[in-house]
């Protein structure tokens, strides 16, 4: 008897300890990131803008491409470090692997076996040919990414004369016409430079050497994306806006890891994981729920995020939505401070002078010493670090001191290298006295900008800087209608105005072609009217060279712009995110949010 009692006690103690351990384990599992996957793999976040168009042939907005990159795939993709990696294509073509011919004019691309659209259709080289011909014919905002391909302009010419009664007469629309012609294999709608020698090989022939093309073709959600002809044919105009119904043709069919399962305009979007997706890494998330909210809801959404109703904030092209007070609130909360992420975004803002539009005129027009001197005076009179500190609190943006190309991108010149970023009020004043001693030239100047966001405080800051350091009163000319402002700016109607660029792909050509010189002039986007034969000549050479050889040429272009004092650099934008620690893999780089298929929800 006496010998059994301790045994019973030991057994009882062991059971008690075991139960306590189980209880502790259960509690611990609920309170911390257990490391395993949560049972629910549904990612939830808000966005503050409805999609404009998800058609890769016509999309433009950042919010659209951030979503589309998860639905549509290109031949290649950018990884999280903005490096080109294979996607639908088996490899990234180089001269070394035989993918690019020795003259740089022919690309041979082999497709991955097993790649398929999310309706199950295999992706063949014909799909690539169709997608690119369609994008060229549609002539959307990014169609020029294909412009170096032989036959590009012929397709545009053929498609560029849509039926005149397309809108009112109920006849064939422009897009329907393109689909009809492509379906009929009309040679006028096929770029001679894109062909499909076999089901898994695409051959691309260029009209001229192009060092930036591969990068441009990789830009997600735009012209390089591969779409399914069968799906597009179901509704050539609006196929992309319709949710996919498994087992039925039509809807927003892509080759990505997710598909649009439901869409309620101005309310919500639900994306679901494609079962047995062909790519990698295989997604953990089963669903992505996006609430479309009014921008005024951001404070309420921060509260919702803190309470766990949202997993993250800032995704979907909304990294600029969090205001400074809200950011302070998150960073000041010890529980959430570590879950806040700031990421430089590829967006630079500067002030443009009218350099080349005689009808607009102004004191900065032309290449005279006076015009250049006054441009430089206005640039040196602005304290860029002060602006980043005063307006952006060094959180929303940072001072642009390394050239027009944003820090972190190819072509960035380095911190403090831009002479126009210097703050030298004494020299600025001296230049002003030298070139406009009476103040006649710089009287009645107006700084034009589109109202809203940082633009208002930036304008007020600039006005104060020019008043304080130059003694010049520049009146402010805000435009409440952004489209009107952009129209006027593109037409070169402003003497001095807000300007900027958000990069599309990590290549300097994206900046120097689109903003200054002969290419921008031809494209109707040369806002300053800067036109210099030397610039154009270097640009032509740079665009034709492989990137590693072209970088120095692009830097020369930067220096030309600086020597000419064509702009006043202001700031590089920062994106801000609030991401719960249990959302593994979520984040962002200079260009885009990390892909959804890299994200998982950990136990929490």
């Amino acid at each position: 008897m006496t010998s059994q009692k301790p045994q019973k006690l030991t057994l009882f103690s062991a059971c008690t300890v075991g139960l306590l351990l189980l209880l502790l384990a259960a509690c611990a599992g609920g309170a911390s990131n257990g490391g395993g996957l949560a049972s629910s793999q549904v990612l939830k976040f808000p966005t503050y803008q409805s999609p404009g168009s998800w058609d890769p042939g016509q999309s433009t907005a950042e919010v659209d491409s951030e979503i589309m990159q998860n639905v549509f795939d290109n031949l290649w993709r950018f990884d999280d470090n903005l490096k080109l990696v294979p996607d639908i294509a088996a490899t990234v073509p180089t001269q070394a692997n035989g993918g690019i011919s020795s003259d740089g004019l022919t690309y041979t691309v082999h497709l991955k076996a097993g790649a398929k659209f999310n309706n199950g259709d295999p992706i063949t080289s014909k799909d690539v040919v169709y997608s690119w011909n369609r994008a060229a014919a549609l002539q959307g905002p990014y169609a020029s990414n294909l412009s170096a391909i032989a036959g590009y302009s012929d397709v545009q010419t053929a498609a560029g004369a849509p039926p005149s009664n397309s809108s009112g007469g109920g006849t064939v629309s422009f897009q329907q016409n393109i689909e009809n012609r492509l379906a009929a294999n009309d040679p006028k709608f096929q770029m001679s430079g894109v062909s499909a020698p076999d089901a898994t090989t695409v051959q691309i022939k260029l009209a001229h050497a192009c060092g930036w093309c591969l990068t441009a073709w990789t830009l997600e959600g735009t012209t390089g994306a591969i779409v399914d002809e069968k799906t597009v044919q179901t509704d050539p105009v609006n196929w992309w806006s319709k949710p996919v119904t498994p087992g039925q043709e039509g809807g927003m069919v892509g080759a990505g890891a997710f598909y649009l399962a439901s869409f309620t305009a101005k309310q919500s979007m639900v994306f679901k994981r494609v079962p047995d997706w062909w790519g990698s890494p295989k997604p953990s998330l089963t669903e992505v729920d996006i609430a479309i909210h009014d921008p005024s809801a951001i404070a309420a959404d921060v509260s919702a995020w803190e309470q766990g109703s949202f997993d993250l904030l800032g995704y979907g092209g909304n990294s600029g939505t969090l205001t400074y007070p809200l950011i302070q609130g998150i960073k000041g909360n010890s529980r959430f401070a570590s879950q806040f992420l700031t990421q430089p975004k590829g967006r630079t803002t500067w002030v443009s002078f009218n350099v080349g539009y005689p009808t607009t005129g102004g004191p900065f027009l032309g290449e005279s010493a006076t015009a250049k001197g006054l441009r430089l005076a206005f640039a040196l009179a602005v304290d860029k670090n002060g602006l980043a500190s005063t307006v952006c609190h060094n959180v929303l943006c940072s001072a642009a001191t390394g050239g027009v190309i944003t820090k972190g991108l190819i072509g960035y010149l380095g911190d403090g290298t831009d002479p126009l970023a210097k703050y030298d009020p004494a020299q600025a004043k001296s230049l002003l006295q030298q070139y406009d001693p009476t103040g006649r030239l710089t009287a009645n100047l107006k700084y034009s900008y589109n109202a809203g966001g940082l633009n208002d405080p930036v304008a007020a800051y600039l006005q104060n800087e020019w008043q304080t350091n130059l003694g010049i009163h520049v009146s402010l000319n805000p435009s409440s209608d952004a489209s009107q402002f952009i129209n006027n700016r593109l037409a070169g109607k402003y003497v001095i105005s807000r300007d900027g660029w958000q990069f599309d792909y990590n290549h300097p050509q994206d900046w120097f072609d689109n903003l200054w010189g002969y290419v921008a002039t031809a494209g109707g986007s040369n806002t300053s009217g800067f036109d210099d034969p030397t610039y154009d000549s270097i640009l032509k050479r740079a665009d034709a060279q492989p990137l590693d050889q072209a970088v120095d040429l692009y830097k020369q272009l930067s220096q030309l712009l600086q020597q000419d004092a064509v702009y006043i650099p202001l700031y590089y934008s920062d994106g801000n995110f609030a991401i719960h620690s249990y959302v593994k893999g979520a984040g962002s780089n200079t260009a885009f949010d990390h892909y959804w298929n890299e994200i998982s929800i950990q136990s929490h």
Partner: protein
Amino acid sequence: MVTRGTLIYIGQRLVLIAFTVLVVSFGVFAVVHSLPGNAFVSDRVHGRALQILLHEYGLDQPIPVQYWSFLRGAVHGDLGVSLYVRGLPITPLVLRELSVSALLGGSALIVTIGLGVTFGVLAAVRQNSWVDYLLTSIAVVGYSVPSFVIASLGILIFGQWLNNITNGAVFYPEPWTGNYGTLTELSLPAIALGFYSSGQITRMTRAAMLDVFQQDYIRTARAKGLQNRIVVLRHALRNALVPVTSILGPTIIGVVTGSVVIENIFGIPGLGKEFVESIFQHDYNVTVGVFTIYAVLIGVANLAVDLVYTVIDPRIRY
């Protein structure tokens, strides 16, 4: 009972409504299409890309041609597609938003009529007492203060001050993040929208009740020994409501148009908010579609009020 005369009257009014809607919609169509800027232009959409989009959506056509196209669709219930969310059919969108606005407007009308009639009756019954003075003072404040001021004050008090004082225990959520909103979310906008008109209803009801109280049949009813409650509610109120009904038409219109402001203040995803947003976004088709719906609503509301007269006062015939 619906007489032939009533049917003819309804027919005439419907024709008038149709004509009004036609004129209004064309006017709005012409105005919004004359505004500078458009829904498509951006740093990247310009030149040829812009021209193609304008063409694709028919915006390069003369305004009469565009309007004819809109009208042909509208009579079939198709208000066209959004230019902002490209290709999105407008009709289902605005119908959904109309239902949100209807919920808000209906709630506001309950506030308006409920408060207005109750206060008016009480003030009349307790004429020249402190109750009368208090309620008529509230009514004066009600119709003196615009709804957007009440809305802003409401948000300040319930969304900010009380939230801070009670450490979040009393908190008005703003803006709506759902579609129809919870009862809590609905309460403040409904009061803000309805309170303004309730002041007018209070004054009108009070005056009408006092007038009716002087009538012989009320004296007779009291002489018969009927309870005061029955005299007031069954005999006096019904007759007093006739003049009150006459301002219901303008009140409903006030609620409908007022919702444009209130929805934007509270972030309510209704027709009014859509209307304002569509103007800023140059979403012409949505603007015209919403405005057309407003015109129809106001026309129909006026007609409905006129018909209600015949129910309340059988002496009225059309």
